[in-house]
């Protein structure tokens, strides 16, 4: 069991992130529990996985949300990996899933996730954060609100400031 932030609460989480085997083959899906499989595995084994249930998908930075498309709507959890927080591709993946493919379930960031990355992630549609184990999760939670006013439209605030600005 580990802890994650979900909808601003720190909660227990037992989902397994299932990676490919080293030779690139698909790993066996455990019988029990919530399992997040790679996009590739999901596409290849979709029917069996959906029949099993408790399945989510995780994206690597170079995975294309287009390949999942509207199927995203049927999933309860999608996770996006940030191998390094300086790899910003996951921000675009998050927004595409939310804004283009109508995903409304849990969107989780995992990998190099800590306080200073949460605000941008939150604005790009992430509502769950698997904070790095060596970082203080309570402290990280506060990072969501590093900024509370923004110029741009985003998932979290669909209207840019110029459409909301009250001018005196």
């Amino acid at each position, binding site marked *: 069991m580990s802890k994650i932030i979900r909808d601003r609460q720190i909660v227990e989480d037992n989902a397994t992130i299932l990676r490919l085997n080293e030779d690139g083959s698909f790993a066996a899906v455990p019988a029990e529990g919530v399992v997040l499989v790679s996009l590739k595995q999901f596409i290849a084994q979709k029917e069996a996985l959906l029949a099993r249930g408790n399945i989510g998908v995780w994206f690597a930075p170079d995975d294309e949300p287009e390949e999942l498309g509207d199927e995203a709507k049927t999933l309860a959890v999608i996770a996006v990996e940030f191998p390094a*927080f*300086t*790899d*910003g*591709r996951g*921000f*675009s993946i998050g*927004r595409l899933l939310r804004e*283009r493919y109508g995903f409304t379930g849990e969107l989780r960031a995992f990998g190099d996730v*800590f306080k*200073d990355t949460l*605000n*941008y992630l939150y*604005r*790009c549609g992430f509502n769950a954060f698997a904070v790095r184990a060596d970082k*203080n999760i309570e402290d990280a939670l506060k990072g969501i609100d*590093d*900024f*509370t*006013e*923004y*110029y*741009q*439209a*985003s998932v979290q605030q*669909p*209207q*840019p*400031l*110029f*459409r909301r*600005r009250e*001018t*005196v």
Partner: protein
Amino acid sequence: MYIYDDYDQKIVDARVAQFRDQTRRYLAGELTDDEFRPLRLQNGLYIQRHAPMLRVAIPYGELNTKQVRVLGEIARKYDRNYGHFTTRQNIQYNWPKLEDVPQILADLAAVQMHAVQTSGNCIRNTTSDQFAGVAHDELIDPRPWCEIIRQWSTFHPEFAHLPRKFKIAVNGAKEDRAAILVHDIGINVVKNEAGEIGFQVYVGGGLGRTPIIGALIKPFLEQEHLLSYLDAVLRVYNRYGRRDNKYKARIKILVKAMTPEAFGAKVEAEWAYLKDGPQTLTQAEVDRVTAFFVDPAYETLAGDDAGFLAAKASNPAFARWVERNVFGHKKAGYACVTLSLKARGIAPGDASDKQLDDVAALSDRFSLGEVRVSHEQNLILPWVKQSDLFAVWEEAKRIGFATPNIGLLTDVICCPGGDFCSLANAKSIPIALALQESFDDLDYLFDLGEIELNMSGCMNACGHHHVGNIGILGVDKNGSEWYQVSLGGRQGSAASLGKVIGPSFAQDEMSEVIEKIIKVYVDNRHPDERFIDVVDRLGIDPFKTYVYAGRAARKEAA
């Protein structure tokens, strides 16, 4: 100029608080060096040779005198009494203490300034024409568009960690003074036949290791679509730009690899989803921002002020300064004055706290309280009455900013180089100082006419050496400092890249090399032919032959 409201202030203040917390956690060991580095870079903070270096944004080069005074105050309080103006309309402080930086940012925020995204792999400070809003050849004032882009790019949630840095420049005049063709995105503000404002969008220009002139991917973008289109360009770059090799990570490499046509098509496909979405600009917003850039309260004058003309006729030194440092104004009877930060013996672009205070006082008295910064690293007084020019000249001389050399050989564009920058291969400042020294004779300098000399201490090309008529690049050869020379580059609407003339030179050879290049020019020029025209006409060979003649015995660097 743009004035913050409560929203703008709140956003900048939140950044100060965030960075204060990050610095505290770094000093407490809660953030590692690797974690803190990208965070501090996005606040303009480098760790340099001697100390941290803080780069403060001067959005599109515009300052009021209150801000100029604070820049001087920061130099005095937290640094060694000077700042360095860069080639991208920023000011850098070379000696602040890390612990002081949060307070410096707070001091800046108090006068509506910041260091947001002045470094790091994000969208950098948007740059523009230093004469925006006052130039005699302006078609459309680019500043409202720069401000709209500034707000859009500030803490954009999706584009905070791009493959590499990303620079946008905007031009609205006949002559491009913003170097838009060598930016990641270059925007020309234009009008179509119906008189509607729109944009020509160029992408993939840039200098550095692989210099490329930008490609036009959108001949006319309607104004309301500016931000959604920029979102589309940035999204394509964020997703597909290379991240495996930092030398191949700029958008220019992606555009080149895909071809500009294919890149443009990919942007169009992405834009199809974003177009007409919430980022579509409203007329109300365009009007709101534009209203900040109205002309200040100037006087209606006839022009050709008699006193000014008389002074010019009777005082050759003043006339010389007017010829070089005064630029045509859109309003009759007014002029734009460039204060030269290229005096002999001073590193190009450096200004002391005292000089900054003096410039503020000068502008309050003679330029309606406005000051501009140019990418050529000079300061501009944009609203000077012709009748005040003589007094401004006298005062500028006292300050040390009246060298009449704008556009001439000694108006060197120069990065900080090996004296300060930890990325440098070679020093650049000593070369610049030596050059100022050898071309100190004003008569000779004037006779040589317009020659742009640009110098960078390494391939990153902060001194834009590729677009200098004479370009100098510091290279490392077995641990010692060498210089590669190129000829024929130019900036502006016909921007082109210089050609390297041959093997590089040692530092002590450089003065002689420049003198020889100049001699070839002087010996071959026709009356009224500029340096660049001679290089165009003759090519680089005569220069090469003369510069390398009899040099074979000397150990060369590749």
